[in-house]
């Protein structure tokens, strides 16, 4: 999600020189998707950069925050929001592909992104079915983790996760990894980047933990333009954003949010999410039919 914030701020700063006096950029920001940053800090940062860029380049940049994706969707549909910043799963569950336009995402050089289900190597868990009766953790308020884990339980055990093992939630990925490492949980679903970071901090983690399942994607958070936005503005924003890492201000933002570079993202890159969403819909419908 940090990548998404960086993307948004870069857009604010880099789009400005290309904008006309009448250009208006309204950003819709889904706050529950922010997990590893202080919400107040994020909001202040966004507004500060928006004001600074706006004054310097004659653009009216405004940041809007949302706690409900439905509200964000409504504003987007009526043209109030040009840019949607939210986790990929929430976007896929809310928007249809034709309602979105290409945007940007913050990426790391060293690792790919996605989810991994980790277990202790010493526990002898070699397949998903071995998790029966175990304690499995995932991030709280993380729609992707919930959907992915539930889909796995349905697909591999034809049962609800709650019926297979004890599900627990933690606030942070690192915390979740440490719980498994120290034996306070048997398995955990964490992001690939988080596991990579934990491995860097303690190589013992790589030795002790084993990846049971892996699901990859381009990013966990996205900033996508609304399909209703003027094409010229979208192109101008895209071109300028590609040069984000070439400017001092852009580098500062990437450093601030620990993102290596900004990359153009197409709407099609959200296909894994829509796939998860469809699977989720299918077993939900199946479950409803059985009732």
């Amino acid at each position, binding site marked *: 999600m940090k990548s998404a914030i960086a993307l948004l701020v870069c857009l604010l700063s880099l789009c400005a020189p290309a904008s006309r006096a009448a250009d208006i950029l309204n950003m819709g920001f889904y706050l529950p998707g922010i997990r590893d940053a202080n919400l107040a800090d994020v909001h202040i940062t966004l507004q500060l950069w928006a004001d600074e860029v706006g004054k310097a380049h004659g653009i009216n940049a405004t940041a809007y925050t949302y706690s409900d994706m439905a509200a964000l969707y409504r504003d987007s549909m009526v043209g109030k929001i040009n840019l949607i910043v939210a986790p990929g799963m929430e976007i896929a569950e809310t928007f249809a592909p034709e309602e979105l336009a290409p945007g940007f995402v913050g990426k790391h050089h060293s690792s790919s992104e996605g989810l991994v289900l980790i277990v202790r190597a010493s526990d002898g868990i070699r397949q998903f079915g071995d998790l029966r009766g175990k304690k499995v953790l995932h991030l709280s308020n993380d729609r992707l983790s919930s959907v992915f884990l539930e889909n796995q339980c349905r697909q591999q055990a034809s049962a609800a996760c709650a019926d297979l093992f004890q599900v627990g939630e933690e606030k*942070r990925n*690192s*915390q979740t990894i*440490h*719980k498994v*490492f*120290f034996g*306070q949980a048997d398995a955990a679903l964490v992001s690939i980047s988080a596991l990579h970071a934990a491995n*860097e*901090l*303690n*190589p*013992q983690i790589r030795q002790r933990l084993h990846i049971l399942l892996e699901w990859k994607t381009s990013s966990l958070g996205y900033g996508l333009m609304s399909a209703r936005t003027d094409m010229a503005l979208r192109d101008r924003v895209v071109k300028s954003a590609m040069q984000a890492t070439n400017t001092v201000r852009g580098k500062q933002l990437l450093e601030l949010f620990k993102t290596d570079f900004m990359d153009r993202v197409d709407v099609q890159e959200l296909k894994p999410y829509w796939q998860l969403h469809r699977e989720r819909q299918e077993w939900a419908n199946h479950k409803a039919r059985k009732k």
Partner: protein
Amino acid sequence: MTPPWLSVRLLPANRMFFRVFGVFGSLLLAMTILYGLLIIPLQRDSLLKVLYSQATTVSRSIIQASSDAMLTDDFGFVVEHNLQVLQNNKSIQSVLIVPRRGSALSIATSGWEMLQTAAAPIKPADYDVESYGIVTSPEGNARYRYITPIRFSGVSWGVMQIDFDTSEYEANIDEMYRQIAYISLFTLLAILPIGYFFALWLTRPIATISQAASRVASGELDTHVKIDRNDEIGDLSHSFNQMVQALAENRRQLENVNLDLEIKVTERTQELDELNRTLDQRVRDEVSKRKEQEQLLIHQSRLAAMGEMIGAIAHQWRQPLNALSLVTQNMQMQYLTGQQTEESMRALQDKAQQLIQRMSQTIDEFRNFFKPSKHSETFNLAQAIQAAADILEGMFKNHNIELGMDCPSDIELYGIPGEFSQVILNLLGNARDAVLTANQPQPKIFIRASLGQNQVQIDVEDNGTGFDPNTMHKIFEPYFTTKEEGKGTGIGLYMSKTIVENNMHGNLEAISMANGACMRITLPIKTSPVTG
């Protein structure tokens, strides 16, 4: 023309300026360096206390936040929390948590790892001891290490070691050194102008007064010091000016006095010159006058002596004259009676001739006695006294005065015999007058001479009136006499004392006796001329 500011000397040429400047500068610099040397350890301690305070705060915070996790062996939380602590506090380099049971956790900004307790650097013996201080890592980096026991409800759970980055501490120390260096440099730079003006302010008035004092010492009493300051130096300059003013006034007065003195000295010198010019004449006049007086006295004395001699002759001649008168009467009687014969005539003539011869002899004797002799010679004392007594013999017989004499015949003296006899004659004459004035029924005069050690003493005693105590001290003065008018000249004793003391180097003194008086002559025994 040289501008006035060029004539101002930037460095005053007085030693005191350089001394004050040097002392002030050295003192200030030394104080600054001393301050620096004193402040560095204090500052180090202070910074270490800050580190200690930070360490205790961080350790308490970690222990307090992780207490539940530690008690429940939730090491994931412990790691998570400490990673956050390390992330939020860049000064903490690492945290090492060593539980009494289980594995130790080494958490650093670069990562964390689990350690076997035995491999942990803290030994169980140190679990209950708090320690802290600067340590050096194996890589050679300095760090502040704080080790504190972890206790819950008094029960030891383990120990925690926190390493703090000392770069800030070292930066502070470096900054402190830099600041002290800057302060020292600033002090050094400040000393130059401040010290210069301070030394100038302090020494210039003193130098001014000193120079003025030198000018005053060289005689420039119109010197005036212009220092307008409201302090001791101002008072000093004011007093100096007053002193110089008083000195000038005194000098003027002294010059006036000197002038008066010079005038007086000139006058006196002129007077002295005049006096010197006339002194010889005056001395000559005085000497001449003195001689005249002496001549007069001698003349008077001689006249008195003549009187005495005539009196004495008269007394000597009285008997032969009576006898001659009887001879002439006998001749007349024989002629008238016809008894005159050739033989009787011849007998009477022979008789008369003898008498006349005797009278003539008396005159010769007197003449010889009083004949002035100016030649000193050795003479016999008894003979000289006897000669004087013979002159007055007739007179003494007429007045029934008994003259006694006790004088050894072998005493020889050296001097002018006539002058000595004149002295004896004067003393006998005065004794005769005294006994006659006293109407003594048995008037006596006695001359006694006795020989002492190198001197002879001659006493002329009488049983006359003696001396009047009121006038005794004046009896040797010239023209002083107690005799009736016409009988005394007042010269005799004066001349006698002059002869005895000046010519014969003896002494003449008057002694009162119970029945009369005694005149004592003391003379040195000399038989040949002596000096002095």
